[in-house]
Each structure stands twice: as C-alpha cells, then as structure tokens.
C-alpha cells in the first residue's frame, strides 16, 4: 500500500510539472517562431500549442518516474538482493495503450481539419507563378499581364495560390516562407501548388528548403506584404519598368539592372551596384582585371559576353564548370546581353 501511494504521489507531481511546462511553453511559443504573418500560420500555431502542451505532460511523466526511480530504488552498497518480481500490470498497460491512441488520433484529426482549411481555395484568390531554379526565385503574375518580377509582393488579406515550377533540366527546390509557415517542393516536370493568405504587413524571407547544390544557402528572396492600394501601385510601376510582356524569363527589358536581377545573376555573383552578394560564382566587381587575366586576345566586352553565353569556355580558378546555366544565349535577347555587358564593365570599374 505504501508503494501505491508513492506511485500516485509521483504521478501527480509529474503531471503538475507537465501542466506547468505546458503553460510556460504556451507563453514562450511566440518567441520561438517568427511572427505569424498569415491565416495558415495562425492555425498552425494553435497546433503547436497543443503539441507542446501534450509533449510537456508526457515528458514530465516519463522523466519524473525515471528520475524518481533512479534515486529511490538505487541499490545500497553491497545490496545483492533482487527487486520485486513484477511482470506486468494489465490495467496499467491498457491505460497506457488507450490514452496514447486517443491522443494521437485527436492530433491526426485536428491536423486533417487544419490542412483542409489551409488548402481550400476560395473564390477571388489570386495566382502567382513561382519559378525556382539554381539558384534564384522568379515570380510571375499571370492576371497582371504575366508581369515578371524578381521579388515577391502581395496584397494584404488576399488568398494566394502559388503555382510552382522548375525548369525541366533543373533540380528539386523547395519554396518556403517561414513567416507564413508554408512551403512545398518545386519539382522539375511536376507542377506543384501551395496556398497562403498573408495577414500582416512587412518584409519576410523566402528560402529554398531542399538541397539544390552549391548555391542552396544563397537561394533566398524577399516577400513584401503591402496594403492593396500600395500593391496596385507597385504592380503598375513594375509594368512600366517592363516594356512588354516577356516570352522569355528575363522580363524583356533592356534595363541592365533589372535584367541582372531577373536573370538570377545575384543568386550566385557579388556585384556591388546591384547589391548582390552571391558567392557561388566569381566576384564581378572587377571584370576588367578578370578579362585581362582570362580573356586572352579578347576585348573586355568580348570576354564578358562570352562568359555569359558560353560560361564553360573559361572557368575562373577556384570555381566549378557546369554550375552557371549555359542557356542565357537563348533566354536573353542580344540587346539585353549588350546592355548587361556595359552595365557590368561600368559598374565595377
């Protein structure tokens, strides 16, 4: 009888500790996650709370009984006796089978409900096409005349369906926005979608969440959530910058700075005038010197042009061949490349 009450005492103490832990976790949770910036994020955070609460209780129960037993039933020096020949206790075993079944089933059902709510498309949602490629993100707004931009801007409060693509010869990426708590892989050959509804103004990070090669850590972009009116203005401005709807990926403008961004150069290269800090490929800040060293018998302009359309011909030492796409010769127009060349040579000096 004495040990039954000890069992009850330990059980109650650990249960109380677990509940206290749950309350503390609930209080601290906002510090552990980025601020929830979307409807789906808020629903998810509720799930986190319940998971933390249940985990805290189970952990305290297990650790409590473990620690208590290790202390209370430890062998005194020289004690060669055996413990009590207890082989089991059917009642206890039934309880700790049934209760976990109930707990996990509840979580599974709750998760299913949240998932369905998060993913059900509502009338009036907007569509954004996202292209993930080594090592940059690009965005297209099909209902805004296929406007192509290099950063993602969204109006507050409107559900967005992201349609994710990767070039068929590329690798798997994963489009993830921690603040919105959503993400989905971007798979060559298989279009995927993910849904989010931003509810908080601000600037948020977009990351790639699937190892995609040597530029994986750099494959980041920005989401800006604006008020609807501001967003409309932003769209209009972007349209102005892009002179015509582009059939290719680069935006069609001969504005070299825009081409630099939209073609994804900043994903891999450092170039101060563009604010690019990529380190996958060589630093472009001093191309004249580079051309002198590597471009034997060519003018700097020829060297830079060749480096864009045929990157494998001359590889700067310390960098690998085969990383930079060799398709810019076709995806960019000749005028764009010419503009890029002078932009690059001028910028670095």
């Amino acid at each position: 009888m004495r040990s039954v009450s000890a069992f009850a005492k330990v059980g109650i103490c650990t249960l109380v500790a677990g509940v206290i832990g749950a309350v503390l976790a609930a209080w601290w949770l906002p510090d552990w996650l980025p601020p929830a910036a979307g409807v789906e994020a808020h629903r998810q955070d509720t799930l986190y709370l319940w998971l933390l609460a249940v985990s805290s209780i189970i952990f305290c129960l297990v650790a409590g009984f473990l620690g208590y037993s290790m202390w209370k039933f430890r062998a005194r020096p020289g004690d060669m006796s055996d413990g009590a020949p207890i082989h089991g206790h059917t009642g206890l075993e039934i309880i700790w089978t049934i209760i976990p079944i109930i707990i996990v089933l509840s979580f599974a059902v709750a998760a299913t409900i949240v998932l369905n709510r998060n993913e059900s498309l509502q009338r009036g949602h907007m569509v954004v096409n996202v292209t993930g490629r080594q090592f940059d993100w690009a965005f297209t707004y099909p209902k805004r005349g296929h406007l192509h931009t290099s950063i993602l801007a969204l109006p507050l409060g409107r559900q967005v369906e992201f349609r994710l693509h990767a070039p068929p010869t590329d690798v798997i990426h994963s489009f993830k926005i921690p603040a919105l708590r959503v993400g989905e892989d971007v798979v060559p050959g298989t279009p995927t979608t993910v849904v989010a509804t931003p509810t908080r103004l601000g600037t948020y990070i977009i990351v790639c969440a699937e190892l995609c090669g040597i530029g994986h850590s750099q494959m980041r972009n920005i989401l800006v959530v604006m008020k609807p009116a501001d967003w409309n203005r932003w769209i209009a401005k972007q349209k102005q910058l892009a002179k015509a709807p582009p059939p290719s990926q680069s935006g069609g403008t001969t504005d070299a700075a825009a081409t630099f961004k939209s073609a994804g150069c900043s994903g891999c290269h450092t170039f101060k005038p563009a604010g690019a800090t990529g380190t996958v490929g060589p630093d472009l800040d001093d191309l004249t010197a580079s051309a002198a060293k590597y471009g034997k018998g060519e003018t700097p302009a020829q060297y830079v042009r060749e480096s864009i359309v045929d990157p494998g011909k001359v590889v700067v030492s310390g960098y690998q061949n085969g990383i930079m796409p060799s398709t810019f010769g076709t995806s960019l127009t000749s005028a764009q490349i010419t503009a890029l060349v002078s932009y690059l040579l001028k910028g670095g000096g």
Partner: protein
Amino acid sequence: MVAQASELHGHELHAEGHGGGPKRSVWLRGSWVRAIWLSTVMGLGAALLVMVLRRWAGFSPAYDEGVVDTFMLAFAGLGFTIGIGCWDYWWGYIIGSATPAHEDHSNHGAYSWRDYFKVNTDHKVIGVQYLVTTFIFFIIGGMLAEGVRAELATPGLQYFSPATYNALFSVHAALMIFLFVIPAFAGLGNFVIPIMLGAQDMAFPRLNALSFWMLPVAGMCMVSSFLVGPFDAGWTNYASLSVHGPPGQTFWVMGVQFAGASSIATAVNFLVTIVTMRAPGMSFWRMPLLVWANLATSTLVVLGTPFIAGAQFQVLFDRIMGMHFFDPTHGGNIIVYQHVFWFYSHPAVYIMMLPGFGIISEVLAIHSRKPIFGYKLIAISTVAIGVLGFTVWAHHMFVSGMAPWLRVPMMFTTMAIAVPTGIKIFSWVATLWRGVIHLTTPMLFACGFLFTFVIGGLSGVFLAVIPVDINVTDTYFVVAHIHYVLFGGSVFTIYAGIYHWYPKMTGRMYDESLGKLHFWLTFIFFNATFMPMHWLGMEGMMRRIADYPSKWADMNFFISICAFALGASTLVFLYNMAHSWWKGAPAPANPWRALTLEWQVTSPPPIFNFDEPPQIVGSPYAYGVPGARHAIVTVHVPPAPEEIPVPVALARATPVQREAIMSALKHILVVANQTVAGERLIAAVRSRAATDPIRVTVICPQNDPTDTWVVDQAAVAAATRARLDATLAALRTAGVEATGSVVDRDPYTAVLDVVESDPPAEIIVSTLPRTRSGWMRRDLIERLRDRTQLPVEHVVVDEPSETTTS
C-alpha cells in the same frame, strides 16, 4: 581474449591450413596480401576491359569516369573479399577439391590477436570485428560532423567551399547510417545472440564472415569518394541533383550496394538461427527481448534493403547509361525516386532502433534486478513496429509534391506507430519501479536513452502533424529530431550494449569511473548540442546550408562548441575500451548475476560456447524469485585426477573426520520419480558437484494424489527402487556422496519432511516436459519455492515413459 579451447568433441586445433601439409605462399592463400593484389588486378582489369569494349562498340570516349568507376569498384570490392578468403571453401566445394574427413574448424575461433584480422567463422570473432570496424567509421563520420560544425560556428564561409561542405554532411550521414549504426547492431547481435539461444554458432558461419568483410569494402568506397569529388546531394541523394552530381556519386552507390548485401546476408543468418537453433525449452515466449528485436529487424532488412539498392541503381543508370528514370524531359518522374528511397529508408530507421530497444530491455532488467515489465506487450509491439514501419514512408514526403491524397493516410499510420513505441517507453520506466537499481555505466546509458528517446519521439509527433511538418520540414527541427532518436536513441543503446557485454566479449572489466565520466560528458553535451536545434528550426533555419543569417550566430556558436566537447567525450570511451582490454581486471563469468544464457558460460566464452545444448526451464527475466532459473547449462568437466571421491574419503574417515567432511558438504535434495534415472538429471547433479562439494539426498515420491490409475503399487515401487539404485551408483562413481529412498508420500509433503529433518541448501526437482508432467500441472516448483524459500532448480528430462502408469 584468447579463449579456452574445448578439449572434447575431437576438434583439432589448427592455426592455419587444412589437416597438415606445407602452408601455401602468402600470395596465394587467403590473406591481406592476396586481397590487395587480387582486388587491384580485378579492379583495374575490369576498368580496362570496359574501356576496350566501349572502344570496340563505338562509344566515344572510351574512358568514361562513371562507367569505369562502377566496374572498377564492383570488381575491386569483390576481389578483396575473394582475396581475403571469404569464398575459398565454397570455391573448393564447386570445383570438387577433396575436403577433409571432417571440418577441422581451422579458421574458427580467436587463438591469437591475429585471428581478428583474418576471415574467421566464429560469430564471436566476427562480432568483435564488426564493432571495431564500425567504430573506426564512427570516428571518421564524427570528424566530418565536426567539420560541419566548425563551418557553422560563425556566419559566412570560412573553411570549406559550398561543394565540400555539402559533401561533409552527406558522407557524414552515409557513414553513420550504413557503416556505423546498422552494422554495430549486427556486430553486437552476432556476438551475443547465438550464445543467448544456446547455439554453438550462427546458422551460416561462412556467410557471416563474408557479411563482415563486405563492410570495409563499403566503407572504403564511400570514404574514397573524396578522391574524385565526393557525393554531395545529402545521404538521401534525391534526383535529379544526384544524377548531375560529382563522380563520387558512383562511389556512394557502390558502397551502398556492398553495405546492403552485407546487411541482408547477416539478416538471413539471424532469421534462420533464431527460428531453428534455439535450445530445447526455448519457446518464442521464453526468448530474451534482444532476440525478438533482432528477429523483427532482420525481417525489415531482408524485405526493405533491396529498395534502396534499386533506387541507387536507378540513379547510377541515369548517370552512366543515359537512362531517364528521373528525367522529366524524357518521360521520367523525379518524385518516384523519393518513394522508392523512403520505402526502405523509413524501415531503415527502425532497423537502427529495434536492436537498441532489445539491448535496453536486457540492460534495464538485469541492472535493476527485476523482470522486464510487460514482456509480452514489448515483444508484440516490436513486431508491430516492424510491420507498421512499412506503411509510413511518405511522411518524409509531405511537401514533396506527391499525390496530395496520400498525405493524410500516411499521417494516420505515422501516428499509429507512435503508440507501440510509447508502450515500450512506459514499460521500461515501469521496469525500474521497485527494482534494486545498480547505476553501472550500461544502466546510466539505458536511463539516458529513456530520457533522450522520449524527447526524440515527441518531436516525431510534431513532425507527423502535416501542417507543422510543412513548416519545420528540412529545417534544423528535423536535424534535432533525427539526432535525438539516432544519437540519443541508437548510439546510447550501442554504448549501453558495449559496456554491458564488454566483460563477456573481452574477459576484462572496463573501468567504471571512466565509463561514468564518458556517460555524463556525452549526456550533457549531447543535449546541449541538439536541444537548441529545435528552436533554430522553428525560427526558420534551414538544414544543409553552409551559411545562415547572422541573427542565429550566437546559438550556432554555442552548438558548435558543445559539439566539439561531445566529440572529445568519445576519446574517453576509446581509451577505456583499449586500456581495459589490455589491463583491465579479469572478468568473472557472470559479473551482473544475470539469468540469460550468455552469462552462464565463461568470459570470454569457450570457442564453441556450449558442450551440450543447455535446457531452458523458465523466463529469462525471472528475477526476484529465489532459485528461479532461465536455463541449466551442463559443463563437461572431467574430475581432477588428484581428487579423492567423497564416498571413498568418507569410508576411510574416523567419526570426527566424517563429521567435519559432512558438515563441509552442501546438502542437495533431489526430487524425481519417473525421471530419476534420467541422464540429464545425473549430468545436472554432476555439474553441481563440479562447482561446490555436495552430498545428495534423492527422494522418489511415489504417492501422487491423482495417480488413481496405478494398479500394482508394489511393482511400481520396485521399478522405481531399481532406477534409483542405478542413479545412486552412477553418482557415487562420479565421486558424489549420494543416498536416496523411495518415499510413499506426495512430492510436496515428502520435500517438507526432508526440509524439517535434514535441511538442504538447495533443491533440484526433475520432471518430465511440461506437457507430460503431473507435477508441473500442479505447479510443484513454484509452490516449493514459496514454501521453503530455498533455491529450487528445475531439470527437464525428456525420456520415454517406462512405467505401467501411462
């Protein structure tokens, strides 16, 4: 560590060669020399042949790195196993060379330290070979991890290029999974399980040796990938990054094939051994839980490993044969890779976990002197986890873009598998309750495992919830989870198992203070390293990145420092293992006073483990009941020639001397009726006499209350008397002072009579097997134990009935 050779069974002890004759040259017989030249010749020869064929068939250029590497590695690896001697016997069999009259066991058993570096068919040698080899790869994999943490200590790229960094964590994980955790459990199981089952070796000892030698080949493949551009697509190797990866990809694929083949062969060996070679009396419900665990694990290995082999072959074929399994421009499907890969790799995590669960069950029961709580439920939940493990693979693919309808069912099955796992954790904690807990190093690691595994399991529940998984997948939350279950889980159990069975394997005791130091350093720095990663993941730090935003700099720096300390703690372990093996105190046969069979033989065990099959008479966890035995082991020890048999000494003694002799002898009461002349019983008594000087009283209780079918009591009594006399004569000849009588009482009362008049120190009750024994049906043994509080040994004699009563 040099084992005692068994003198009996006519085994001839040859160090080398077969039945005499001059030894062949080291270049031509199974040896490292032959292994090296043969693997070189076969590897280069295959490469050359492939290039010649390509030139002839019109492929240009003749040298293609991927193709050449594939054939070179395959044939060099095979050549190594041929050269070292794994295939010699089978080759001799195939070509019909004359075999010795009977197997001379020339490459069985460790007679010197050199035997550990050769092909050896003794499961104990192979077990040690596995453990040492896997720990070498543990150290290499660990150093790669320290490289990762060094790079992540501060933001920015300091030491490694992004390509090398990607390779660091890829090779780290590959080595840890395929060259450490999975084979370390194979090694521990290899050593312990045959002895635990009462067998002399595994079912297929030569296959066992081949399984081991494929492992260094696999490890060399993976490590040497650094020479050609290491594989860098993660150990998961997703297409299509892997298809476009550096030449080291081929090395990873071939390494996995060798490791997989090794694993599958070992699993087949375990399955056959466990199913067919258990000692008499060991039903499935009397198997120790380590055996259950390996049974389930081996099934998983056999059914699942071919899938990862297949997935990697598909990647290889895309790379070197221009196939398009994963090329969407030619009808391929990238996501299919993930399905095939994870169909193995999820059961793989149970392959890495279940043997550890078995080890923990053993360690907890033995070091807390208590039966394991809920034995049947733990055994059933082990099998359940094995089966359910095949139904959850797509929980690794919630955001992969696979068919969306598959996610919710996979979440339900994943949640389901949490239940048997939870049952086990609760049962283990309950095992400790009211035990007598000895906080030895293996026990500390077992308790540490309970602490860390419950955390890892709970974070797994987080990951099973799809909306939460969508947020934290591919972040450091997952890194935290996997290390809590694989390091805090598997590695802690490996440490527990190694410390627990160290005395048995080496014949030495490890240093307990160093062991405790190792535990505390590991436990503290493990938690300090991996707990913060949960928060990093929730805050949005992705995994497999070489650089990160500077807001996480402090946390990463702290983690890196703790990771270095964790790595350093391994040095304490390595020193303890090496030094104790060399200079540790000699270990007794049973330092932990355990009941299972491996502890009933010497440390280290005799080369062939047992002289005759032991008999299993009870549960392996029968702690807390005085005299309860799991097994009776009979040792064939001939009497020392100088000893004078006790009856002769007594006959020659004066009354005073007689008094002295009799009081020095332990009194053993033997109770047997129909089985009194059984050879088993006589051998058991002789075994008893070999360890202590004893005098034996044999009683044959005739009158059983329900023996209503006895017709001629006098005839039956006479027959029993005759048998008893034969038994007493046999015992006396063996030098045991024995008297006996036929008693006309029921066995229970007859024993109590003797206990009152001439108290024995122990009782041996001999019965027919359970299904034929009236005494067993009436629970005689347990009643005697309860009433007399004496150790009661139970011997089962399975002889055809000779009486008229049946």
